[in-house]
């Protein structure tokens, strides 16, 4: 290894105080300088940190944004989420391959540009989209590709050098009273500080506010468990990993009103007795980082963060932003905490739950971005105001990230209880054959269910809402979801690691029209095994694209299965081709 690398590594490790827990930041910083993290760089980081190289390799090999081999100076990551495919990703991909003369997964011979695919980057409302060294390009058309490549080659991409391609639009389509109403910095905090922490929690209890990140756990209960749990220190984490394909509502919050979220985190800190908060931001949203840091700096200047927040003697609280590096599983709270500790994002066994043993095994409350915004508003306007909206078990409003076949994709703040029908009307979707509620890990529903309502009692959702028009090949869309889970499984437990791959293979066979009734039965068995045997929420929901379409769209499957008793999954001639071309042998006559 050139000594330059070693020096770069040592400087970066020193900058992060030789703190093993900061390995995410260290690896990100090193990668930004060297473009890859080879075995030698792994060794250099380990030496500088004084830990074993296996720890560093274990961690850096996990995240999609860390490459082990040198890549091009610029990596173009084209998003291949289902909505991008619906909106013409293939043509854009072809244009990139043609313009650059390389395939996806390759680097140009001059070492300048690598092409890769990446799962949903939170831009489904502006698809197709791509990440280019941290910058987000949206609404890409095939004819834009040449100017993108030229801008990358001439180094102008980051000075707004391309005219034809858009950057991210906020795309807030409908503001509601809770998240996107006008807001005065510090109002919620001052109100909270005028009460005891217990009363703050009690206010959340009265508001009956539930987590917006997916599971819908009551916020007051989580804060109360965390407050009561014993530990050297308590922590607050805001989960901004937003990795569920088709969701981008946190992006809009972070663009429109990050202050509200930081306010919520500060109130959480007061309620659970924490001095330190972490905001975990997915690597794909790095473009938001400078702005968020500015907002934090301003809040510090205004006395809304730091020592004696808002002049309250003894309440010190500050927030650090932790960037992720491309891993959906890091949205799972215990995996997120592992990542925050500088490790690979593998979920922990539960119990103990994070509220008992979270960051550094100390009580930690993890909440979604939107949940914490709700908390700030509840402080400001009171529980009664909040719980007057929505339904009995789902109070307040919900942000929906709506994409796919509709006229006005974007983020909508709606009251809980709204029917799917109303939602479709609102976004101008006239010919939906299906709606994916809650993303791939949620459910795919048919028109017969469009009268149902969005709330925890009926159709729970983290917000991702993907509309499939009548001409879409719905099962092909489900296949793309299955592929997502294959890629994103952390690999810890066999039912998910191997099961998601089996599921995809079996599904493909059916899709190719080579499946039998027996195969269909096996598919459902495999799906249930993965669902019930997997260790964490990822594996437990990964078969939902199959299970919910089997339930709601049985005719689509019936149309593809064959009457035969058995159809093999492989073809002898094909399977022999490779060996024959290598050794020059001629296929034998097989007599059966």
């Amino acid at each position: 290894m050139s000594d330059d690398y070693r020096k770069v590594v040592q400087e970066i490790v020193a900058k992060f105080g030789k703190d093993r827990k900061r390995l995410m930041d260290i690896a990100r910083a090193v990668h930004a300088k060297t473009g890859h993290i080879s075995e030698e760089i792994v060794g250099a980081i380990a030496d500088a940190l004084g830990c074993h190289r296996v720890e560093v390799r274990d961690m850096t090999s996990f995240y999609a944004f860390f490459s082990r081999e040198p890549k091009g100076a610029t990596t173009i990551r084209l998003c291949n989420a289902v909505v991008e495919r619906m909106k013409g990703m293939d043509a854009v991909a072809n244009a990139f391959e043609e313009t650059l003369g390389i395939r996806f997964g390759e680097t140009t011979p001059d070492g300048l540009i690598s092409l890769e695919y990446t799962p949903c980057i939170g831009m489904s409302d502006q698809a197709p989209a791509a990440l280019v060294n941290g910058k987000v390009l949206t609404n890409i058309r095939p004819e834009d590709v040449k100017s993108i490549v030229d801008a990358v080659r001439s180094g102008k991409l980051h000075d707004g050098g391309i005219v034809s391609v858009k950057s991210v639009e906020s795309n807030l389509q409908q503001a509601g009273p809770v998240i996107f109403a006008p807001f005065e910095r510090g109002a919620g905090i001052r109100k909270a500080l005028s009460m005891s922490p217990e009363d703050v929690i009690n206010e959340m209890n009265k508001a009956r506010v539930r987590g917006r990140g997916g599971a819908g756990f009551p916020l007051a209960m989580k804060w109360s468990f965390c407050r009561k749990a014993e530990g050297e220190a308590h922590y607050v984490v805001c989960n901004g990993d937003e990795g569920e394909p088709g969701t981008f509502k946190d992006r809009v919050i972070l663009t429109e009103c990050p202050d509200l979220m930081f306010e919520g985190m500060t109130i959480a800190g007061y309620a659970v007795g924490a001095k330190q908060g972490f905001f975990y931001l997915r690597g794909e949203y790095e473009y938001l980082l400078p702005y968020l840091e500015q907002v934090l700096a301003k809040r510090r200047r205004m006395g809304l963060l730091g020592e004696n927040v808002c002049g309250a003697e003894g309440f010190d609280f500050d927030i650090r932003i932790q960037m992720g590096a491309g891993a959906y599983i890091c949205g799972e709270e215990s995996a997120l905490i592992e990542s925050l500790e500088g490790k690979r994002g593998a979920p922990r066994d539960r119990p103990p739950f994070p509220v008992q043993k979270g960051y550094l095994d100390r009580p930690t409350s993890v909440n979604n971005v939107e949940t914490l915004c709700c908390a700030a508003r509840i402080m400001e306007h009171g529980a009664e105001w909040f719980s007057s909206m929505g339904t009995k078990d789902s109070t307040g409003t919900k942000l929906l990230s709506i994409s796919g076949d509709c006229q006005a994709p974007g983020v909508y703040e709606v009251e809980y209880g709204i029917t799917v029908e109303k939602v479709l009307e609102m976004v101008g979707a006239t010919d939906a054959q299906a709606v994916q509620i809650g993303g791939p890990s949620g459910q795919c529903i048919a028109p017969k269910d469009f009268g149902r309502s969005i709330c925890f009692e009926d159709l729970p959702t983290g917000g991702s809402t993907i509309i499939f028009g009548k001409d879409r090949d719905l099962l092909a869309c489900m296949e793309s979801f299955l592929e997502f889970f294959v890629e994103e499984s952390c690999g810890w437990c066999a039912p998910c690691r191997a099961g998601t791959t089996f599921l995809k293979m079996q599904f493909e066979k059916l899709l190719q029209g080579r499946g039998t009734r027996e195969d269909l039965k096996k598919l459902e068995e495999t799906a249930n095994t993965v669902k019930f045997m997997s260790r964490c929420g990822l594996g437990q929901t990964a078969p939902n694209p199959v299970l919910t379409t089997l339930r709601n769209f049985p005719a689509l499957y019936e149309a593809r299965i064959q009457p035969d008793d058995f159809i093999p999954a492989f073809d002898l001639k094909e399977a022999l081709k490779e060996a024959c071309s290598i050794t020059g042998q001629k296929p034998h006559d097989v007599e059966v």
Partner: protein
Amino acid sequence: MAKPLVATAPFTGCFGCHMSLLDIDERILDLVELVEFDKSPINDIKTFTRPVDVGLLEGGISNDENYEQLKLFRKHCKILISVGQCAITGGVPACRNTVPLKECLEEAYLNGPTVVDGGVLPNDPDIPILLDKVYPCHEVVKIDYFLPGCPPSADTLWAALTALLTGKDVGLPYELIKYD
């Protein structure tokens, strides 16, 4: 009534499942009372002589000979059981599935540490031709039952065979299919 006929096949495995079958100890005498063996490496009968009731399959399918033999088993046996991890998933031999075949062959016959004086890729017309990957049996023919294990213990094999041959339910108790 004539004794049921059993045949066994060694495909791409390690013979461990066959060893496990022999491991039923003196119960092999009971088994011989119960069944008769047709084509099997245990008795060295090389070809099917008549229709067989149960075929036990060890190993995955890695070359055209395996393929042909498996098809023969399907043709002659009423019931086929995939026995052990290699038959069911490809097992250890399927580790090569993640490496391109060309690299595997070159490592084994040209570049490996035990190769002396160059070496050649085996290409005699008489030897079986490798498939691109190692396949589990059920991707090639219809399989009726699966007996997991690496190898399935003698008790598991015994319980499954006797249940099947005496017309009982083949449901196996948890202890016999739990492996951790």
